[in-house]
């Protein structure tokens, strides 16, 4: 059995699915954040895979994944800061408890 790009696509899809599941089922905001990071990294796997498929002299995929890593880091920083702000003002980071904004 040889490992083809399709296998990597499968791994990436699996990771993305797990991330989405974490996002949908977790009550804790930090847990949701981790799920989001998993989704972003799943895409990274895919990008790097296809970078290899399209040949070594074109680095579009790797370049893209580098920027995705940066964005993920920035997003995590801002997310954590917001979670911290909410925790300070109400002592919980459970997503279900965010229900004071109502029409």
């Amino acid at each position, binding site marked *: 059995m040889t490992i083809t790009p399709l296998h990597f696509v499968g791994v990436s899809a699996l990771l993305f699915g797990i991330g989405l599941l974490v996002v949908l089922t977790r009550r804790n905001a930090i847990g949701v954040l981790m799920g989001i990071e998993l989704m972003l990294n799943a895409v990274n796997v895919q990008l790097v895979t*296809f970078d290899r*498929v399209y040949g070594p002299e074109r680095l579009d995929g790797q370049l*893209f994944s580098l920027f995705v890593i940066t964005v993920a880091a*920035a*997003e995590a920083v801002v997310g954590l800061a917001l979670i911290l702000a909410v925790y300070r003002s109400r002592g919980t980071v459970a997503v279900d408890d965010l229900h004071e*904004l109502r029409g």
Partner: protein
Amino acid sequence: MEYDWLSLLPHLILAGGAVVLVAAGAASRRFAGAVAPYFTVAVAAATAAAALMLWREPASSWFGALTVDPFFVIFAVIFAATLALVALLSARYAPLDGSDRPEYYALLIMVTCAVTFMASATNLVLIYVAIEFSSILSYILVGYVRGDRLSGEAGLKYFLYGAVASAVMLLGFGLLYAMTGATDLAAVAANLPHMGRSFETWGYVTVVTPSGGAAATLSPVFIFLAFGLILVGLGYKISAVPFHMWAPDAYQGAPTPVAAFLSVASKASGFAVILRLVLTLHGALDLVYGGWTKYLAALAVASMVFGVVVGIVQTDVRRLLAYSSIAHAGFALLGIVADTQLGFASVIVYLVLYAAMNIGAFGTVAVIGHVTGGYDLKDYAGMGRRHPVLAAALAVFLLALAGIPPLSGFFAKFYVLAALIDRDYIFLAVVAILASVVALFLYARVIKPMYFGKAEGEDVRRFSPAAAVALVICFLFTLLLGVWPQLLVAWAKAAIIPLLPRI
């Protein structure tokens, strides 16, 4: 020219302005805090001037990462104007008093920088980075009021929805790259029709046409998936149903000037990316799955109907305006559904006119909220007597949003409808008109207590002159462009024509 610094000038002015403001804030808080709003206005003016200077034939630079064309110029001017107006509205906005002022304006300038990149980007990487850049800064701005429970909650909710939506969109970009081997939009458009590289082996594989090979049978599914996923992220940006859930919460919890910024600049930037994608990938979209407009049409109709129906039962004015902005996003989407030159141009016209009246509406709400301390419909009772000028201004902005002639909102809707009827999309036009009629009741819910409600509380105190200037500008635009929209339409057409697919 690959290293075309001139094409970057509007972006550089914004980025430089933000860095200067942050540095000034670290050096002297009081001075920077006092000067910041006016500094921001100056930066916005310089950006608009630099952008207008770049009104020329489309030129791609920085290895195809961005394109400077009239399309970009129009959007850059919208964003710069929004920045200036929002900065003026924020100048004396009381809820921000406990928070850091210079940083607030620096963040506003940086978001504007991000959204101008969204208008010029023609590379998937830059588009993604710009979208995320603007989203991440918006999360901070929404949650900016220190120690405020609602602001924090709104920021976190906006963040959680937004991060998931953008991750899903990123997967769409990833699939697009996987199928075409390119991140440059033009190259993606060229490669899409004959994608379908065999995934079986590593390395260099010959490209197979859609009609031959096993990979080709897979590909339409993937491309369908890719555009669907991208639509999730962009639908979230323009707050179209069903990706709208964040909007009412974010607008209610955010500082109201920030809500004004989000409902105008953020939405317009989403439309800029959608227009750019649709126009560049037009041929590929048609070839791969014809009739793609029907998906956008479904989104548009859902947004319009949902926006007005749910908006009509709201009691918080900011939430009411949020649902109205959802309905407006749906209406503007119809211009893209029409899929003609007039249709695309009508979207730009719509966004410009909508920007003036919506900033005006949110600005008046911010001022009224500031002086009366409330955003509930009850707080608007008798406003017509307590402060006749503010009440009249709000009434005009709301009637413009409803599309009453001769105010500018009428022409915004008129051109979209004309484009629809041109293509014989009678059903869509009828739905749009019905939604507008219902929307009139939505806005009447605010106007009625102002003039027929019993006045409670004392007369309204004076408010900040900076905010007054911003409101007057919005007011003039709403009135004048309602009478005289031809120039704007000509500009919008000039922006669209170079982008139209050559058939």
